[in-house]
C-alpha cells in the first residue's frame, strides 16, 4: 500500500488535498516533487502563488524541476499569481476560480494533456479562516468530474491549529485523516464515493451531500467501493435523505456499511441496496 505522505504529492485527478507543511524548505521540495509528478502524468501543472511572486517561485523551482523553462514555454507548466485566479477587486471570487481552472482545463485539452494538476499556496486565506474554509468546501464540486487534482499548501507557521483542522477536514484528503475520493454521477443524479468517511473528513462529505439535497428526481449514492463510514457520517447521509422526497434516495453499499445504516435507522428514509443484490 502506498504511503499517504508520498501519494498526496502524486494525487489522482479528482483529488482535493490539504497539505500542511513546516518551513520554506518543505514547501519548495513539495512544489518541486508535485511539478515533476504532474509532468510525468502529462497533466497541465498550474502553480498558484501568494507568498512568493511567480517570478520568485520560478527562481527557486527551476533547480528542482529539470527542464522547467522548456516546460513553461510549451505550456506544460503555468505559474500564476492568485490575485489573478482567486480575487476580483481584492475580494475572493469563487466564480473566477472556477473560470480560471476551467480555462486551464480547456488549454490542457487543446495541448493533449490529461487534466490539470494544481498546487495552491493557501496563505491567501490566512486571517480569514471562515471564508477560506467555506471556499474550500464550495470548490469540492469541481473535483467530481475528475479532470482536476489540487493540493493546497497550508503553512503551519501561519495557520493556528484549530484553523488548520477546520481547513483540512473540509478537504476530502489530508494526511492523518480518512481519505475520500468521489465522482459526480448523472442519470440518475448522484455520487460515487470510495475510501473512508469519518469524523476527520465528515465536513468534506457534508459539502458533497449538500449539493444533492435539492436535486429533483432520484439520487443514487454508489458506495459499493466505500470501505468505512462512521455512525455520525451515516447520520449525515440520513439527514440528507430525510430532507429529500420520500423514496427518492438510495444507497448501494457493502454489508458492513448496510449494517451501520440499519443500526441507526437510516433504512426508513432511503433504500439500502447491498452490492450483489439483484
Amino acid at each position, binding site marked *: 500500500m502506498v504511503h499517504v505522505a508520498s501519494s498526496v504529492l502524486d494525487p489522482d485527478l479528482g483529488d482535493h488535498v490539504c497539505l500542511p507543511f513546516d518551513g520554506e524548505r518543505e514547501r519548495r521540495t513539495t512544489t518541486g516533487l508535485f511539478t515533476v509528478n504532474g509532468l510525468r502524468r502529462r497533466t497541465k501543472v498550474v502553480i498558484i502563488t501568494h507568498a512568493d511572486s511567480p517570478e520568485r517561485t520560478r527562481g527557486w523551482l527551476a533547480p528542482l524541476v529539470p527542464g522547467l523553462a522548456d516546460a513553461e514555454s510549451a505550456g506544460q507548466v503555468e505559474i500564476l499569481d492568485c490575485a489573478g485566479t482567486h480575487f476580483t477587486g481584492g475580494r475572493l471570487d469563487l466564480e473566477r476560480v472556477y473560470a480560471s481552472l476551467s480555462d486551464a482545463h480547456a488549454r490542457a485539452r487543446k495541448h493533449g494533456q490529461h487534466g490539470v494538476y494544481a498546487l495552491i499556496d493557501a496563505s491567501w486565506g490566512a486571517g480569514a479562516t471562515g471564508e477560506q474554509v467555506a471556499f474550500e468546501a464550495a470548490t469540492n464540486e469541481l473535483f467530481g468530474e475528475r479532470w482536476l487534482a489540487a493540493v493546497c499548501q497550508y503553512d503551519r507557521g501561519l495557520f493556528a491549529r484549530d484553523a488548520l483542522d477546520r481547513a483540512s477536514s473540509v478537504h476530502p484528503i489530508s494526511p492523518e485523516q480518512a481519505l475520500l475520493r468521489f465522482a459526480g454521477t448523472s442519470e440518475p443524479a448522484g455520487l460515487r464515493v470510495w475510501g473512508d468517511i469519518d469524523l476527520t473528513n465528515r465536513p468534506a462529505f457534508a459539502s458533497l451531500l449538500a449539493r444533492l439535497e435539492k436535486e429533483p428526481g432520484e439520487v443514487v449514492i454508489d458506495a459499493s467501493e466505500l470501505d468505512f463510514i462512521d*455512525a*455520525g457520517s451515516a447520520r449525515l447521509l440520513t*439527514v440528507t435523505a430525510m430532507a429529500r422526497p420520500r423514496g427518492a434516495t438510495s444507497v448501494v453499499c457493502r454489508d458492513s456499511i448496510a449494517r*451501520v445504516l440499519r443500526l441507526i435507522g437510516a433504512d426508513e428514509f432511503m433504500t439500502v441496496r447491498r452490492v450483489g443484490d439483484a
Partner: protein
Amino acid sequence: MLAVNEITTNAVLHGGGHGRLRLWSHGELLWCEVSDEGPGLPAGWMGDMRPPAGFDFRGRGLWLTSMVCEHITIVSGPAGTTVTFAAVRE
C-alpha cells in the same frame, strides 16, 4: 472497526482530547480497550444503552458498540473512562 472508531471518537471529543488504545486477540475474539483521563461519562449514561426509538440524531457510540460486540465493559469516573470490548474476528 465501527466500535473502535466510535469509542476512540468519544475519548477524543469528550474524554479530554486524547486517549490510549490497546488491541489484542484471544481465541476467536479481537479485544480492544480505549481509556482516557477525561471527566467520565455523564450522569444517566446507562440510559443511553437502551435501543433508540426510530432515527436518532445524538451520538450513540456506546449503544452501537454494544450492538456489534460480544462483550463490553465500561468503567467510568471523574478521573477517566475505560471501555473494553470484543468482537469475533472476521
